[in-house]
């Protein structure tokens, strides 16, 4: 008789969910995630939908930067490509903007991924020749080029300051943006949109997890750690980097479309360097080179604004007491400033104290408890 819980074959050893304990916690987590619209407030759910888009984008960035080791500051560019592909396909043409008027999400969401992936494939050949800081500079340039193009191309973007209607999510004829109770159960606004985003994020997470435990994912990490040795192993460096760029850009494109669909209007100037840095922050805080890390980091960064509110409630009275500050411009801090402060301090704290991010923190805690009752 086989011993219970023993891993018996290699297939089992390489499975995503290896132990009953993991399966239990994963099920619990999924239950909480899927039931969120029932117990969560409108505001927080709205943040979470953005969070799910961030999750997809952060996984994409972690593939190219965390796993393949190619530092990319151009993530915002690929998000923009995805967002505007989606908008172009889903919105009707108006007097000032062009569009195809196909609101079906199963058309424009994959299209956003494919077009952004192709954009990554086009930029790839330049990017694969460079390493480290030089690559960062080139991808930085990409953001500025993209930003400029979007500002000028007003038939696509509707022009700076105006923007255009965001893509309309319609799944097989059902408007995902509609509100009201579902099957008699009272749910938060945009519950359908949330559930759809959740399913997309889960599917893309599984695809990414499969990728990183395959020969492709191992090649990514080999290229990152030692490229000479990787070449002698028979790994084609250029090809591997190109794959990383393409897949990462496709994820960014999907994220851009998911991010745009929850908005009323999208504006050309929001895909800037700050957005790229936000994604770097997500994978740094969550955990470089870890898919769960990217997810945790993205959700944390996405929900920071909701934490900034309560913190400012505490901080503002303190500033009020310190009356001499009130005469200065900019004090007390408003919520936006506090948010920026939080991002900044999170980044600095993690880079200094735990470069492996929340995942590294979790590993420490887990190993501590594994070793726990100490034998003294």
């Amino acid at each position, binding site marked *: 008789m086989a011993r219970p819980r023993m891993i018996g074959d290699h297939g089992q050893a390489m499975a995503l969910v290896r132990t009953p304990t993991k399966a239990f916690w994963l099920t619990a987590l999924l239950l909480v995630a899927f039931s969120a619209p029932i117990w969560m407030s409108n505001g927080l759910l709205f943040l979470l939908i953005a969070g799910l888009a961030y999750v997809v984008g952060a996984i994409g960035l972690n593939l190219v930067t965390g796993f393949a080791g190619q530092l990319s500051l151009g993530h915002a560019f690929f998000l923009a490509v995805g967002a505007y592909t989606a908008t172009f396909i889903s919105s009707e043409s108006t007097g000032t903007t062009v569009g195809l008027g196909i609101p079906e999400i199963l058309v424009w969401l994959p299209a956003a991924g494919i077009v952004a992936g192709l954009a990554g494939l086009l930029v790839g050949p330049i990017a694969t020749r460079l390493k480290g800081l030089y690559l960062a500079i080139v991808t930085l340039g990409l953001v500025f080029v993209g930003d400029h193009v979007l500002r000028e191309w007003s038939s696509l973007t509707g022009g700076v300051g105006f923007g255009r209607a965001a893509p309309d999510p319609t799944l097989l004829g059902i408007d995902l943006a509609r509100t009201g109770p579902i099957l008699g159960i009272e749910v938060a606004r945009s519950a359908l949109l949330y559930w759809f985003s959740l399913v997309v994020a889960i599917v893309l997470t599984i695809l990414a997890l499969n990728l990183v435990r395959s020969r492709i994912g191992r090649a990514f990490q080999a290229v990152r750690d*030692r490229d*000479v040795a990787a070449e002698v*192993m028979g790994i084609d460096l250029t090809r591997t980097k190109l794959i990383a760029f393409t897949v990462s850009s496709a994820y960014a494109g999907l994220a851009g479309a998911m991010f745009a669909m929850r908005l009323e209007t999208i504006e050309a100037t929001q895909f800037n360097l700050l957005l790229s840095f936000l994604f770097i922050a997500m994978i740094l805080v969550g955990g470089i080179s870890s898919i769960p890390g990217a997810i945790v980091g993205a959700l944390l960064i996405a929900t920071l604004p909701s934490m900034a509110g309560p913190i400012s409630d505490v901080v503002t009275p303190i500033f009020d007491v310190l009356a001499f500050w009130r005469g200065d411009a900019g004090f007390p801090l408003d919520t936006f400033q506090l948010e920026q402060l939080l991002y900044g301090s999170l980044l600095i704290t993690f880079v200094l104290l735990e470069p492996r991010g929340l995942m590294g923190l979790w590993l420490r805690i887990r190993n501590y408890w594994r070793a726990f009752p100490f034998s003294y």
Partner: protein
Amino acid sequence: MAITRPLGTALPSTQDALPDEPVVVADDVSLGFAGVTAVSHVSYEVQPRELFAIVGPNGAGKTSNFNLISGVYRATSGSVCVLGRDAATMSPPEIARMGVARTFQNIELFENLSVVDNLMLGRQQHMSYSTVAAMLRTPAVRRAEVANRQVVEAIVDFLDLQPHRASLVGMLPYGVQKRIELGRALAMEPKLLLLDEPVAGMNLEETEDMARFILDIRDELGITIIMVEHDMGLVMDLADRVLVLDFGEVIANDVPSVVQRDPAVIHAYLGGSGEDVEDAAVAKVTG
């Protein structure tokens, strides 16, 4: 420790696959870097199933010869033929795919990956599924992964790496890392194995273990081995033939017993030319 497991059940022997012509033919090869001549008019042949050692003082061009064979460097003049093809016309990955594996003088493992993943990277060229298939984890991908994992586990058994299988390579001691690097090269199912200082920095026990592994690899799998090593005792005991280099030039190329009494070799290793040092030199080179 000394138990040798039948590695041949997991890795096919190259005994039959190898042609009878030489595995490596270096013909009047030179290699220079901006004024420095690393390799100068070197010619040698390595026969199938031979354990061929390259020795020489520091800077003699031993590792440069390896880099010429594995395609990392291109010869300035002359040619290196590997497994019947000109190495200068191929990229390092192409040469690797032909069946040339190597280890490095300074360990070049992927430190952030586990032992098993490092060995799986050696299997890279034996898996060919596409990126899309990998993301979907199709049954074919799963089969390929399991089959290759079996080979890797056989190598883990052979090299006694079981306790370290899941550890990150960067955390393991030096001697173990050397063994892992040998395992990774072995996982490639090479026809030609290049070992760059396999026992450098090892103690006596680790050296003897490594010597046993090297002999087993040659005898059980019939892999041709070229070895660069400073440990003269090991070289003289193991090698079928020894090539001695000094300042990029060949000064001897023969069986160990002849090489270790060659005056030019003794001169290269100890300097001077006096007869008085010769006895001491013979003792030194013999190890």
